[in-house]
């Protein structure tokens, strides 16, 4: 056990855990950020995606030790009231079905759109293909990403 200081959604947290503890479980069980989900435990499904310094990262494969010096953003920290443009686009398209994978989908999409604000369909497919949804919300996610991208562009103009 060791003491780590994590910067999550702009807040400092001190916790005492094993150095190899995955960030996922620390976020969920030690700090109560349960919006980040456990899906596979091996970085294969994307349900646990959070941002480390703005980059989409699989929290189930990231040790708490590795995350210590980064700014960590979870779905809870994306916006205060669910009004981030990507969350808004998801809302407009009524994307979620069971909803379990959607935090990870949104976090992946946000970091992707930051890198590529004007994506093609192929860009979207390629950026999102590592996030699994078993309900099959992929068509709605595509629409939501296009909607968010369009909005972002028109805001820039």
């Amino acid at each position, binding site marked *: *056990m060791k003491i780590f200081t994590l910067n999550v959604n702009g807040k400092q947290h001190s916790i005492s*855990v*094993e150095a190899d*503890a*995955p960030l996922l*479980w*620390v976020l*969920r*069980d*030690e700090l*109560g*950020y*349960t*919006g*980040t*989900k*456990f*899906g*596979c*435990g*091996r970085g*294969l*499904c994307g*349900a646990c995606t959070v941002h480390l310094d703005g980059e989409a990262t699989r929290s189930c494969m990231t040790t708490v030790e590795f995350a210590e010096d980064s700014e960590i953003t*979870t*779905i*809870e920290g*994306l*916006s205060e*009231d*669910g009004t981030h443009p990507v*969350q808004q686009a*998801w*809302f407009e398209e*009524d*994307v*979620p*079905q*069971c*909803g*379990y*994978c*959607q*935090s990870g989908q949104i976090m992946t999409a946000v970091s992707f759109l930051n890198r590529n604000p004007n994506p093609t369909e192929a860009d*979207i*497919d*390629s950026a*999102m*293909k*590592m*996030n*699994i*949804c*078993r*309900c*099959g919300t*992929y*068509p*709605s*996610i595509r629409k939501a990403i296009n909607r968010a991208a369009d909005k972002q562009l028109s805001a820039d103009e």
Partner: protein
Amino acid sequence: MNNIMDRRDFIRVVSTTGSGLVLGLYLPYTNKLNGKTKAATIFEPNVWIKVHPDNSVLIMVGKSEMGQGVLTSLPMIIAEEMDLDWSTVKVQQAPADKDKYGSQMTGGSRSIASSWKQLRKAGATAREMMISAAAKEWGVPAGDCTTKASHVIHNMSNRKMSYGSLTEKASQVPIPRRVSLKNPKQFSIIGKNIKRKDTQPKLNGKAQFSMDVQLEGMVYATVVRSPVFGGQLKSFDEASISDIQGVIKIFKIENGLAIVARSIWVAIKAGKRLKITWDKGENDALDSNKIKALLVEKSKKQGAIARKKGNVKKAIKSSDNQVEAVYESPFQAHATMEPMNCTADVQKNKCRIWAATQAPARAQKKAAKITGLPIKKVELNVTYLGGGFGRRSINDFVNDAVEISMVMEKPVKMVWTREEDMQHDYYRPTSLHVMKGAIDNENHLTAWTHRVVAPSILFSQLVKMPFPFKEKLDIISVEGAKNIRYDIPNILVDYRMANTPVPVGWWRSVYDSQNAFANECFMDELAEAAGKDPLQFRLELLPKSSRERNVLTLLAEKAGWETFNSGPYYQGLSFHKSFGTYVAQVARVTVKDNTIKVGEIHCAVDCGTVINPSIVDAQISGAIIYGLSAALKSKITVSNGRIDQSNFDDFDVLRMDETPKIHVHLIESDAAPSGVGEPGLPPAAPAVANAVYAATGKRIRRLPITYQDII
């Protein structure tokens, strides 16, 4: 006390609600059964509806929300008949309470179909009571009043009162014996693309899945089961994990070995490292080849007759244009995104459970049995389900949590790893389908035989579920086979049970998934033998102006079946009716660079009255995507008595870049609504397989379709 129904009235009201509801649906505001008097400021005409003085209305939902939209679509039915202002409607998932809410079993695409009449009456009854209360207040005939957006209106005097201001008065109104329901032409909520009530919390991390429940003083656990089916725990070596800090206790439970720790992470780490010795039992040598051999062996003899029409033998004998084919499909895992888990807090005198379950009442009953507590002392809260697809209708994971909490005398969150989840599922059964068909000199299909050979879900769960069961005919196994929709003069469908130690269960669309694959691919083989276009061949076998025919006709028109130019995409067609819903699909597929790509799917659907078109679209699209995973990618195989696959690397599923453009076309109808959670799935695999044939000339008779199979 004229404001309260007497016991006789109470029962009469219940009996007019139909749908096999249990006593207790209609509770008067003074709950005589409990002997308690409630404050009348909340109007509660029945268990589903609570009107608050601020004019908001809370609607309880008795079916589990697993993504299919029941938290929105079921309240829409009540809101329609009650004329509610939808923006002030709040919804709540009901806890397990069979006496209060009736059957809460969520599955079989039945939620809307089985609640339709009942919820319309519940809403209409509440509306009428509101009208009576207002009419009395104003001293006008009830017949002169109307309702709109949670208000009663008296047009002649230009007066209106909100439902919220009438709660006390409406509670004094006797519950009407008969209510009239709206003419569908008056619907203003049903049929609209209304946004889901559960969307917002699913976008900001606030939606509570059972995985997210946190209780004071909670410990965490995982369970390791015998990797070989039927194996038993022999011993475990605690010293092998002595270096892992935070393990609290390791002990045997009914289904395996429980590892309790201070965090899930520690429990999982310990579970993976712990040296466990299993008595492998008698299934150690089982593998997929042996299972296949069993099915082949079984297929040689006739089984229990599921459907017999005319004389197939005679018809086949007199034909010189016969076709034979054997189709096969593998086991499939559900692989819900949320692995099985449950939180339980067993105390001396009560037990509280938070479970993502499709069968709340059964979970509650079993927990009562495990703990020895009366059912009333077992509180079972249904959380959001992170996917169901049939997996969560079996509550083995709930039992685990209850057993562990009982031993620990503490609240416990029990979580399976993805590997446990995938290797201890109740799988979609593997199956073999022996098909024969005969065509006469005029190119008409005259005979059809279909032998279904598969493990039986009913048989494996018979102890718990006494279904009709004679001569080893599992009636579920032949769903979609025995009731094939085509008008063929001679039909024989039989079933041979081929049980294996691999647990089997309900998987989205159940046996309709395999039977439709065999039916609809074979139909294409027969169409070719008859020298006919697959669409024309099917239409000829369907009665004029039937729903089957209409759905195929709409599909052909919307997809442009007849005018489509092949290359680089090729098209295939299928039709299947399941769960009361008629579905036809066209798949467009290209085969190149070692890959089969589905570019586009058109899907026509007749599910009767559509409650919420966008939810129906999402369910149909979702079922197609789930079906495409099984058609193109995933399968479960067995070696050494255990499942080979363990996670999403070796059980790969459809990804966004592999997802076709999906166009859903709904038939307009005012027939009673039927299910939409499952019926989109069965036609997907055969439509794709038929398109692959069009592209390559290779018949696909085995799923999943691989590139190796067609080169």
